[in-house]
């Protein structure tokens, strides 16, 4: 800096110096935008925890985790998160039941069976499916899938977990297919040639050689699928009902954690009230559940990665 004020410095060097300072400033600015990502993470944790703390001063953690009734808006208040967790787990489970086999088969088909042309045509369709807003899928579940299911099973109520679970599964198929397919395409061609040179068929190569070789990436796809299903909001809020109900029965109606947050947000929120705080406690639970599934998933993935 001192040099800049020094009149002895030639104008050319001064220009260099100015340019260097400018470069530094720009680098700092870019760094800040990178740091912003860390800031968001910290802010999420801070907001959820700081709003949940007063909630847990009202409600003991024991009641929160063991009570099976969730009625923060009734006169007799219960705060048993399990009534919401059950809904989240049930819809997630149904969704995975649909998405994991369909997504995996699609991935294997695209990676090992389809010709180049078919693959190049199908992948954009899958991407379009990924882009469909979830509120539209919710409409689909309520107005089309549930009535269809009612034809097979007439006792099904208008709001149930089965329909939205299935639709959620359909929504997730392209995610699994795309991530798992990438993992399979990344398996070196030498591996395929090795299998084909042994006289293996496409199916044998795909199942016995490529799938084990890509297992780490395939599990990553499943982890992503679980995160999507656990955090999915609009499909369940529209089609599963918003009444908390401690049940794992897919034909009953129930609220998920996300659906509860939406239903409270739609009403009049009194800032700082227990209802307001409860959605942050629910959100924190949701985040921890997502985190837990991710950790389990990565542990499984690591275990497989060691075996193969």
């Amino acid at each position, binding site marked *: 800096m001192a040099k800049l004020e020094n009149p002895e410095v030639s104008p050319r060097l001064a220009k260099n110096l100015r340019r260097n300072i400018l470069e530094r400033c720009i680098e700092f600015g870019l760094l800040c935008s990178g740091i912003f990502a860390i800031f968001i993470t910290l802010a999420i944790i801070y907001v959820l925890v700081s709003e949940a703390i007063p909630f847990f001063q009202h409600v003991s953690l024991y009641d929160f985790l063991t009570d099976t009734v969730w009625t923060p808006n009734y006169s007799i208040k219960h705060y048993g998160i399990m009534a919401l967790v059950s809904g989240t787990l049930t819809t997630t489970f149904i969704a995975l039941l649909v998405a994991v086999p369909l997504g995996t088969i699609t991935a294997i088909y695209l990676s090992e069976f389809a*010709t*180049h042309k078919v693959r190049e045509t199908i992948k954009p369709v899958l991407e379009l499916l990924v882009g469909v807003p979830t509120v539209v899928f919710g409409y689909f579940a309520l107005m089309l899938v549930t009535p269809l299911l009612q034809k097979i099973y007439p006792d099904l109520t208008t709001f149930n977990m089965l329909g939205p679970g299935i639709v959620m599964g359909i929504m997730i198929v392209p995610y699994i297919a795309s991530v798992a397919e990438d993992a399979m395409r990344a398996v*070196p061609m*030498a*591996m*395929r*040639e*090795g*299998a*084909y*040179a*042994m*006289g*293996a*068929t496409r199916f*044998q190569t795909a199942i*016995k*050689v490529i799938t*084990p*070789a890509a297992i780490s990436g395939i599990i990553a796809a499943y982890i992503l699928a679980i995160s999507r299903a656990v955090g999915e909001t609009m499909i369940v809020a529209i089609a599963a009902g918003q009444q908390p109900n401690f049940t794992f029965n897919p034909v009953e109606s129930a609220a998920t954690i996300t659906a509860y947050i939406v239903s409270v947000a739609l009403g009049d929120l009194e800032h700082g009230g227990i209802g307001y705080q409860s959605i942050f406690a629910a959100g924190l639970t949701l985040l921890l559940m997502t985190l837990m599934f991710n950790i389990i998933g990565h542990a499984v993935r690591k275990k497989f990665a060691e*075996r*193969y």
Partner: protein
Amino acid sequence: MVDKKRKHPKEIIKAESNALNFSYADGTQALKNINLPVYENKITALIGPSGCGKSTFLRCFNRMHDLYPGNKYDGEIILHPDNTNILDKRVDPIEVRMRISMVFQKPNPFPKSIYENVAYGLRVRGEKNKRVLDDKVEEALKGASLWDEVKKRLHDLAFNLSGGQQQRLCIARALATDPEIMLFDEPTSALDPIATMNIEELMAGLKEKLSILIVTHNMQQAARISDYTAYMYLGELVEHDKTNKVFTNPRKKETEDYITGKFG
């Protein structure tokens, strides 16, 4: 055409290519009118500068080119004694591959245990009997002189083996199914000298049971191990004869230039 292909009357022909042409999907013609016999219980080496088509030729023998759309064969490769043209569209490539196995340039074990790698070819053939599998795996690993090194850890992951061991594992894998011909595509180019020596010794023993076709970029290797040598250049077969003849008294000037290192 047949007289061009100097047949050696004392040998039994296991396979022969007749007027074989091959083009890749982009239209480049990689093989031009190749006529070459592969003799039974002999090692035939393919030599030539890189890009001469020797690997391409080798990969015709188990229809590896079928994996990539657009590749075109023309001509025939006849497999004896049943006189099957293995390039015929009506012949299933899988059938060809079950009879003719291949060892690749870089070791490519599957992400499975040592045992499962060797047993894979048998499983593909529908073998489920544990006793048979155990016996065959042991036999193949012994045939590939790997048994003593791995018998205590058959269920370890194959990736944990050294490069030379991996390549011998791939040989055992190819051997386990009793192929009629084994193809080697520069099998030692990724290995150190000691591992290379092991594999060369192995091949000398293997030819008692089957016929071998090997691509090598290493002329000394061809001279050491092969009975017959074929020199290829720019997709054409320049010379084919007994190895000692090719290396001591080649008929063609180009062959001599390549062998003496004036070129290539």
